[in-house]
């Protein structure tokens, strides 16, 4: 658990950070909270000759709450949990963030690191897909945005280029009811299965729905099939079963110490059922 030697940089502004990435290419990595990257470096599974620490970039922190919510990439999960304005407009952020790791990790872990690392175990990518969030990235070529639903390509492989830094996450204030339900082995663990659900209703009818699943494939799974099964229904037992069945068609869990595939598929259905029930009750 001793990392190989690396050079450490702590730029004061984004342009300096970006130029370091230009200079070192794929030999450089940015570090936010470090709770994924540092263990990988200690295990010598990540080879990072040049480590660019973003913690002095104040412009990447902060939460703006309006019709659109914008969260700076270096905002910690602790800050998200304790932002009352955010909790008023999008309580799902607090609900989900409270299920990430443990309090000590959440003091350090950031939204940017969580969504940008491409770890299928991370909780926020699935939630951001559910909320149809957009990620802003910057490089020496300028700024661009990437929808969360198009960001994840494979485990630890994303649409972000090596020379780009993710600066913020934006999404519309969620309407209707949301829920994030997660099954895990213990505090601090990644999900055995987790579901992010957003539902809008008019009377007894579901008018819009969005569903994403965490750690049940090598990328987060935004399941249109699951969501569409709820549309124009009363979210009754049959509709929920169809949604689960749609979701099961989209996930592709692998066996690991959390359990075999059959177990994971079963609990994915149970967890999604609970998340739909909770979101519908809140809608």
């Amino acid at each position: 658990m001793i990392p190989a030697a690396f050079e450490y940089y702590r730029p004061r502004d984004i342009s300096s950070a970006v130029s370091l990435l230009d200079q070192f290419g794929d030999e450089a990595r940015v570090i936010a909270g470090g709770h994924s990257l540092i263990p990988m470096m200690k295990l010598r599974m990540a080879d990072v000759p040049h480590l660019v620490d973003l913690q002095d970039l104040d412009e990447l922190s902060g939460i703006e709450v309006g019709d659109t919510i914008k969260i700076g990439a270096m905002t910690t999960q602790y800050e998200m949990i304790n932002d009352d304005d955010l909790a008023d407009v999008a309580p799902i952020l607090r609900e989900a963030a409270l299920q990430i790791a443990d309090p000590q990790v959440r003091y350090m872990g950031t939204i940017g690191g969580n969504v940008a690392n491409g770890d299928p175990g991370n909780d926020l990518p699935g939630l951001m897909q559910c909320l149809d969030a957009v990620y802003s990235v910057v490089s020496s070529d300028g700024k661009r945005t990437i929808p969360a639903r198009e960001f994840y390509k494979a485990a630890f492989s994303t649409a972000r280029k090596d020379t780009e830094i993710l600066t913020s996450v934006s999404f519309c204030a969620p309407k209707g009811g949301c829920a994030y339900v997660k099954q895990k082995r213990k505090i601090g663990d990644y999900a055995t299965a987790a579901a992010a659900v957003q539902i809008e209703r008019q009377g007894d009818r579901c008018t819009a729905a969005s569903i994403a699943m965490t750690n049940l494939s090598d990328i987060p799974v935004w399941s249109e099939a699951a969501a569409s099964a709820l549309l124009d229904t009363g979210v009754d037992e049959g509709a929920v079963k169809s949604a689960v069945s749609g979701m099961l068609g989209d996930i592709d869990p692998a066996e690991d110490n959390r359990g075999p595939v059959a177990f994971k598929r079963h609990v994915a259905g149970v967890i999604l059922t609970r998340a739909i029930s909770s979101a519908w009750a809140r809608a």
Partner: protein
Amino acid sequence: MNDMSPDRAERSEKLNGLGCSRKRVEDARFTQGKGNYVDDIKLDGMLSGDFVRSPYAHAKVVNISTEKALEVPGVLAVLTATDLEPLNLHWMPTLAGDKQMVLADGKVLFQGQEVAFVVATDRFAAADGVEAVDVEYEELPVLTDPFEALKSDIVLREDLEKGADGAHGPRKHHNHIFTWEAGDKDATEQVLSHSDVVAEEMVYYHRTHPCPLETCGCVASMDKVNGKLTLWGTFQAPHAIRTVVSLISGIEEHNIRIVSPDIGGGFGNKVGAYPGYVCSVVASIVTGKPVKWIEDRMDNLMATAFARDYWMQGKIAATKEGKITGLWCHTTADHGGFDACADPSKFPAGFMSICTGSYDIPTAYLAVDGVYTNKAPGGVAYRCSFRVTEAAYFVERMMEVLAIELNMDAAELRRINFIRKDQFPYQSALGWEYDSGDYHAAWDKALAAVDYAGLRREQAERIEAFKAGHTRKLLGIGLTHFTEIVGAGPVKNCDILGLGMFDSCEIRIHPTGSALARIGAISQGQGHATTFAQILASEIGLPAESITVEQGDTDTAPYGLGTYGSRSTPVSGAATALAGRKIRAKAQMIAAYLLEVHDDDVEFDVDRFVVKGAPERFKTMKEIAFAAYNQAVPGIEPGLEAVSYYDPPNMTYPFGAYICVMEIDVDTGEHDIRQFYALDDCGTRINPMIIEGQVHGGLTEALAIAMGQEIAYDDMGNVKTGTLMDFFLPTVCETPHYTTDYTTTPSPHHPIGAKGVGESPNVGGVPAFSNAVHDAFRAFGLRQSHMPHDQWRVWKIANDLGLHN
């Protein structure tokens, strides 16, 4: 002096002696980060060592190329077996009478095995050096299943002479280590064939690991000027380590000083001798500099002593009324690549023969076969006394299985089979003499405390509700009544490497009435400095606050076999009480002289000697201490010191009744422990607060083991659970509330009647948690499902029983 006048009570209270919840004197430093652990030791010029470890579970080592590593800045040396061979240190003896490679000698037998030792100027350079060592392996077929290993043509240990006996008798196969038997085989088989009911089951106690918060490590410093080797380390048995180091290195024992500083938990993991110790010593001799070696967490989980891994095939026979007539057990013990179990020499399966438990079982037979596989060596007593946890788990599962077979309530089945109070001392069918117990009293108290009948009614209602589709949660009631055998042990049958398992205490009373006590045991967090001072306070009448307890430095502490198997209080604690009594005996003579009466005319009274019948005439122990150094007492040497070496006449037999009430979500496999009641009888209670802390800690480790903690291997012998992401250590969030309770049945042979308690909660806790899981599904046909009961395995129970349809 039986009257407890207010004055006496007040004086007694001031001593903070036996029975008071004195705060732990250790905690001032531990809670302020001021502990002194082995990794805190920093010496001038100290070097750092790190291992190249095998990625394969079974492979030939074709070549080790160290050139590139030696080019890494800071790397000074790379040791391999070839370097150790001229010193005859490439192999070392194990505590179990086997031998173990210090560094890979031509092959490796488990993933994580030590292959080369890199010595560098600092920890970072050592790690870089490890990365640069190039080892060429040729993979060999892997055996991870002990049953397959016993049938396989694959030879794991070519170094062992074919057909020759092992340390514990004949070996039946090249992968077989020993067969160990207890009891009467023929009589037991007779009983099995003539009883009304026989229940048979395979009970597997999976491989796990003690995983102390502090991993293993040491600092070796060879002073070439005076020829003295000092070895600081995480040693649960520093004197035994000194003797072992002397025997294998040839350094005379007086030139070796072993120091165990503060230890961050041991739980058996720190009893054995590891290649890291040998390599550090050799590296210090070679370089002339101190060398530090500290395991990281993955090293610790992969390579230093695992625990359990017992496959226990059981048969239990009874009358149709439920009176047990016989117990049969055949255990297949997976010891990994080397037999490095830490057991008393004559007990290669530890005290597994306590597997008749708390029950009056007239006839029993136990056989244990040890087997080599491609897994890490070890087999230590993880918070238990030499396989007592395995034994307790086995018999407590068999009781449940028998209850199912008889269609009986499991609490009632236990009650009608308990050894009765009037049967003690009780001779068990497998050869032990249980010293004392009152099992029925403890059981009744426990069942009443949890309203057992009410719980069963609630469970029956829950089952109906479940069947009607009103709930998806089942309720399990996990029962355990365990009996331990601790405090090893009588020298006549207990030794490790020929060293009798006595223990010791040496006391010096200072002139001003304070004291220094040195003991042969060593705390790893148990709080000896607190509790041993309490024992002495009551024995010698000086306040516990005035007594310093020292341990762990072999240059100053009297010889002892260390701390494991709940032996500190039963053995070293007894030595402490007896040494205190020697102090008191001399003090009595001094007091009589000072009071100008005959020795027999004074008697001890809390903190003083008083003239019989004239309590206003007295000398306090503080006054007597001073007199010992300033008065010329005729016929008595000056000073006030004593030493005691205590050879226990018998083991002690703590027991307890635990009840766990658990809710289980049938759909996700998640559990919720609604209630856990733990009644312990550890005999005389020295410090109730420390007992409660020990019980909480031990129950939490039991929870971990039963509900998720394991060292799992894949078919290739890769460790699947090598980090704390997958190796389950519960946090406060997973830990339930515990209710503790007690009865007190003093040990009749121990000087203060104490029995030991630190391991009871692990021994009794594991079957209580496991039985709760099983009990939840009993109504749906479950008989046996192996631990750990993590979510997917519990889900699988439900799935296999058709509860998801």
